[in-house]
């Protein structure tokens, strides 16, 4: 693990006498490698190492008998600080309907997460409505209908129809039927697809979501910054949900998404079952990224 290798590196360096800026930098090369192997974005790592170096060349580390541990604490705190705060749970509008819009690349887990959020809302005494706004993927509507049925939550869908108008009508339908938490499941799309990105802007325009969440696969590599940045620049999302964290991916995408958009990770998906949604804890994520 990085903890072990850093301790080894710094003990060896300390053996050479007083620690200097140079040998701290050498030790931090290990950190750089670990963060890149954890899929943290290259530029994010570069900035982070620079900040950590400034902190690590302080007297505390130089005088310490366990410089490796000191440096690890600095890195850990830096990661936690960067990814914080602890995931703020969703809050709902009193009285009026709350519209939650899910967006993201193909296959990241939007439909499953939509159902998970609707289940969460139900458990908090809300009256959710799931909206099948993916009219493009084969059986996407059917997929959401089945999940809705499993949860006893209604699903709004249409036979054909364009997503922006469909979503607008879904909100009107919710208001009529006393549903106060509307979860919009949109089709997966590339951030470089201008037509589909503009469709999302139109859905946003027509439904005025209270929360837009960027759903991101936790095993995403260096490209996480590209998609996160573009979705954020076009939609100003409120937060991200990192999915499939029940695997062994180190999840560096978490840091990349937060660093490049400034938006917090609100929840994490930890399984295919609909109860497998947890709040995001930056300290747990920091330990995971550091391996």
């Amino acid at each position, binding site marked *: 693990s990085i903890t072990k290798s850093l301790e080894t590196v710094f003990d060896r360096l300390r053996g050479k006498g007083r620690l200097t800026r140079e040998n701290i930098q050498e030790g931090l090369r290990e950190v750089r490698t670990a963060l890149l*192997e954890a899929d943290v974005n290259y530029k994010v790592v570069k900035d982070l190492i620079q900040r950590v170096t400034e902190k690590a060349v302080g007297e505390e580390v130089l005088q310490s008998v366990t410089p490796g541990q000191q440096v690890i604490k600095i890195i850990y705190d830096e990661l936690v600080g960067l990814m914080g705060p602890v995931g703020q749970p969703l809050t709902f509008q009193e009285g009026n309907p709350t519209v939650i819009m899910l967006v993201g690349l193909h296959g990241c*887990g939007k439909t499953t997460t939509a159902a998970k959020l609707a289940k969460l809302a139900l458990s908090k005494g809300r009256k959710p409505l799931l909206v099948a706004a993916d009219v493009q993927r084969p*059986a996407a509507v059917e*997929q959401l*209908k089945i999940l809705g049925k499993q949860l006893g939550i209604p699903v709004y869908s249409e036979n054909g129809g364009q997503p922006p108008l469909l979503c607008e009508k879904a909100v009107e339908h919710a208001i009529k039927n006393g549903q106060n938490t509307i979860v919009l499941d949109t089709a997966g799309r590339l951030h470089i697809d201008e037509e589909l990105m503009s469709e999302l802007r139109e859905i946003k325009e027509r439904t005025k979501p209270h929360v837009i969440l960027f759903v991101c696969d936790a095993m995403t590599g260096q490209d996480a910054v590209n998609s996160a940045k573009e979705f954020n620049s076009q939609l100003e999302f409120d937060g991200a949900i990192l999915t499939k964290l029940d695997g062994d991916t180190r999840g560096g995408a978490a840091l990349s998404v937060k660093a490049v958009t400034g938006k917090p990770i609100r929840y994490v998906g930890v399984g295919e079952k609909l109860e497998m949604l947890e709040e995001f804890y930056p300290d747990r994520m920091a330990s995971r990224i550091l391996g």
Partner: protein
Amino acid sequence: FALGQTIDEHLLEEIEAALIEADMGVKPVGRLMEELRRACQSGEVTDAAGVKGHLKARLKERFKGRKLELNMSPTPPTVIMVAGVNGSGKTTSIAKLGYMFAREGKQVLLAAGDTFRAAAVEQLEIWAGRIGAQIIKHQTGADPSAVAYDALEAAVARGVDVVIVDTAGRLHTKQNLMSELGKMKKVLSKRIEHAPHEVLLVLDATTGQNAISQARLFKEAVDITGIFLAKLDGTAKGGVVLGMQDEIKIPVKFVGLGEKAEDIQRFDPEGFIDALFD
């Protein structure tokens, strides 16, 4: 990279950054850069244009003589099993493969081996209809191996040329799900000798270093014979498939370039490597 510059540290750092950002992996890139520095010092590489050319040549030579075609059975049906983590693009990639065979005039049968996920069977059914393939399916919750077995029976009886078996997405770290996959492979081989002739791992091109763990564990479970690199039409470069070749030798055979049945291409190592440097 500007051509005609002499080689300096800044250029090398730029190149290293580009390859890491293409998901090649910090250690494989490190090794590549070390070899490059030796070539610069020995005078084998003398300017910026030479740097790029040298790196491309080093990467391309790894593909010399490697077999990138699908393993087809000498007697039909050829059986292709498709696996991968959740949401990687398996079902859509199967439709693309089926469409490719159908256009060659082959009879294709799809096996709805994902009996778990909501509307997985319906999704494959729609694709079968679109590409003119037959489909074998059971009810939700059925044993996936039973579906696979059934599909082979039907394929033999009907003289089908290619059977493609869809499986449920699963994380490679889930032991029980990986054994389920191994069981399906055994069932296929018991019904038809040498089946499955091809076991494809569908990898999402946006995946980072976790792809190596995926490849390793799926290979252990079902001896993957090829990679289908899906979603390469995005901005991700899929460099991890190069980075992993030091540890896990699995040839990339196809790439997915969109959501339509025709958005498939055979893997072209030359074009892929050139694109890493764009």
